[in-house]
C-alpha cells in the first residue's frame, strides 16, 4: 500500500563542504558552505529557502542558530533530533511541509568541525544516568555489545565484520571525495588496535569534519531545475530505545519496521533496489541493516557481506561512496546516505557512478541503534 506522499517531493540539489578537514572553520561555517553548495546545484539562492530542516551536535537550539547564521526567516522549521538518522527523517517532514504548502523550498543541512576542533565525537548529549557510572565508551561500547551478541547467536565472525570495512574502502578508493583511500585488507582490520571488543579501530567510522545539504521542492516543479530530480518515493521512521541497556533484542533493530513501511510506501521490494546507502557507524551496522531491511535473512548478514559481495563488482552495491567507514563521518553521517543515493540517481556520483540507477535506498541510524529511518528514492521512471 503506497502512501499519498509517494513521489510528491523531489531532491533538486545536493552539496557538501569541508569533507575531511575544514581548518579554521566552525561547525556553522561548514553548515553554511554546504547550504550554498546545494542551492548552487539547484540554481537557487538562500533567499528562496522558506523551510529549514537542521540539527547540529553542539547546541540545543541548532536550527535557530542555523537560520540566524544563514540570514533567513523560514516559515517552517524542523529540528527534530534523533541522532544521525535525523536527516533521513527530515525527508518525511519536508515532503509533508512541501505538500501542505507550508513551504516551497526545503533546505536540509548539517555541518561539523569535530576533527579539527577536537579530534573526537563532540556531543551536547548527556550520558544516561543508569549507564554513566560504568563508563561505557560512547558510542562504541554499545555497538560492540550488539556485535558480540550477533556473533554469539549467529556465528558471525570478526573476519566478516572486517570485510564490511574492506568493501567500504574499495568504494572509497574510487571516490576522490573520500577521506581514507589507502589500501585496506581483512588482515589490516583484524590486526589494528582493539578499541572495544570485538571491534578494532578499523571497524569504527572515521572522525572527520564535513557538512552536507539537500534542497527539495514539490514534484510538480522538479523538472524546472538544472539537473535530473531524485523523487522521494517512501520514507519511514521507527525507534526502539535510547540507552543500549534498554534494547530488547541486540540482534534486531527497528530498521525492520522502518524498512518495511518505507518499502510499502514506495511500492517496491529490496530486490528492486539498485544502490544501498546505509549508516555504517561501525561494521556491525551494515550487517544488521542488510538483514533488517530484508536484503538477507536474520543471521545471514555475515555471509552476505563476505569476500567482496558488497564491494565494487559484487552482488549488491552498498555504500558506494565509501560510507562513514572510509568516506566521511562528521559526528552524524545520515545526510550523506541521502546525498549519495540521490547522486547515484541523478548521475553525478563522485566515485563509481553505477549505470541507470532508478531506485536507491538511504538508511539513517541514530543514537545507539536507537532510531532507524529508511527512505527510498527514485528517478522519473519510477513515478
Amino acid at each position, binding site marked *: 500500500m503506497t502512501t499519498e506522499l509517494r513521489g510528491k517531493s523531489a531532491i533538486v540539489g545536493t552539496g557538501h563542504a569541508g569533507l575531511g578537514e575544514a581548518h579554521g572553520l566552525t561547525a556553522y561555517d561548514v553548515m553554511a558552505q554546504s547550504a550554498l553548495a546545494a542551492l548552487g546545484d539547484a540554481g537557487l539562492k538562500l533567499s528562496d529557502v522558506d523551510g529549514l530542516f537542521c540539527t547540529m551536535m553542539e547546541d540545543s537550539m541548532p536550527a535557530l542558530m542555523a537560520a540566524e547564521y544563514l540570514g533567513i526567516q523560514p516559515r517552517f522549521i524542523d529540528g527534530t533530533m534523533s541522532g544521525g538518522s535525523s536527516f533521513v527523517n527530515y525527508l518525511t517532514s519536508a515532503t509533508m511541509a512541501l505538500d501542505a504548502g507550508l513551504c516551497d523550498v526545503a533546505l536540509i543541512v548539517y555541518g561539523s568541525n569535530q576533527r579539527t576542533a577536537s579530534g573526537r565525537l563532540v556531543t551536547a548529549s548527556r550520558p544516561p*544516568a*543508569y*549507564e*554513566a*557510572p*560504568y*563508563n*561505557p*565508551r560512547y558510542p562504541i*561500547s554499545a555497538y*560492540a*555489545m*550488539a556485535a*558480540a*551478541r550477533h556473533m*554469539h547467536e549467529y556465528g558471525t565472525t570478526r573476519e566478516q565484520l572486517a570485510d564490511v570495512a574492506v568493501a567500504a574502502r574499495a568504494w572509497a578508493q574510487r571516490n576522490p571525495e573520500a577521506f581514507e583511500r589507502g589500501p585496506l585488507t581483512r588482515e589490516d582490520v583484524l590486526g589494528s*588496535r*582493539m*578499541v*572495544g*571488543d*570485538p571491534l578494532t579501530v578499523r571497524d569504527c567510522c572515521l572522525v572527520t569534519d564535513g557538512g552536507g545539504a539537500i534542497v527539495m521542492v514539490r514534484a510538480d516543479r522538479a523538472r524546472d531545475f538544472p539537473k535530473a530530480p531524485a523523487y522521494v518515493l517512501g520514507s519511514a521512521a521507527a525507534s526502539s530505545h535510547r*540507552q*543500549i*541497556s*534498554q534494547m530488547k533484542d*541486540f540482534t534486531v533493530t527497528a530498521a525492520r519496521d522502518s524498512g518495511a513501511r518505507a518499502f510499502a510506501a514506495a511500492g517496491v521490494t529490496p530486490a528492486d533496489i539498485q544502490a544501498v546507502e546505509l549508516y555504517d557507524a561501525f561494521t556491525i551496522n551494515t550487517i544488521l541493516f542488510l538483514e533488517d531491511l530484508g536484503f538477507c535473512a536474520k543471521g545471514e548478514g555475515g555471509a552476505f557481506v563476505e569476500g567482496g559481495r558488497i564491494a565494487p563488482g559484487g552482488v549488491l552495491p552498498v555504500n558506494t561512496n565509501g560510507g562513514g567507514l572510509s568516506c566521511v563521518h562528521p559526528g552524524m553521517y545520515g545526510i550523506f546516505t541521502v546525498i549519495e543515493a540521490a547522486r547515484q540517481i541523478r548521475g553525478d556520483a563522485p566515485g563509481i557512478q553505477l549505470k541507470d540507477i532508478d531506485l536507491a535506498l538511504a538508511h539513517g541510524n541514530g543514537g545507539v541503534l536507537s532510531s532507524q529511518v529508511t527512505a527510498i528514492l527514485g528517478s522519473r521512471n519510477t513515478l
Partner: protein
Amino acid sequence: MQDAKGPDQLFQRALAEGEILLPKCDDCGAYHFFPRVLCPHCHGTAISWKQAGGKGRVHTTTVVRRKPERGGDYNVCVVELDEGVRMMSRVEGIAPGEVVIDMPVTAFVGEAEGVPAVLFKPSEG
C-alpha cells in the same frame, strides 16, 4: 535523601544503604528497570519495590580498551536479572575478557565513579 520521594531517589537511597530494590508493577506483575513513575509494559502507575534476588546472566559484554597508565582495560556488560530486567554493569573479580555471554552472575552493591552502584561477580558453583 531522608525524604526521598521519586523513583530514582528511592532506588538510590536503598543502594546507598546496600540494598538493591527493583520496581514491580502491581497491575501486570512485571518488573522494569530503570525506575520510573509508570510501568512501561502496561502503563499502570501502581508500582511497588521488591528486593532483587541478585541472580542473573550476562546478556552481552565488551572490553573497553584503556591504556595501562590510565587504569587499564575494564568490562562493560548488560546483565539480565532473573526478574527479567536488564541493566548495564560490569563483572568484577575476573579479567574483563573472561566475561562471556550467558555466564551466571550475582549482584552486589559496590562503587562506580564514586557512587554506590550495582556490580556483579561470577556466581559460585
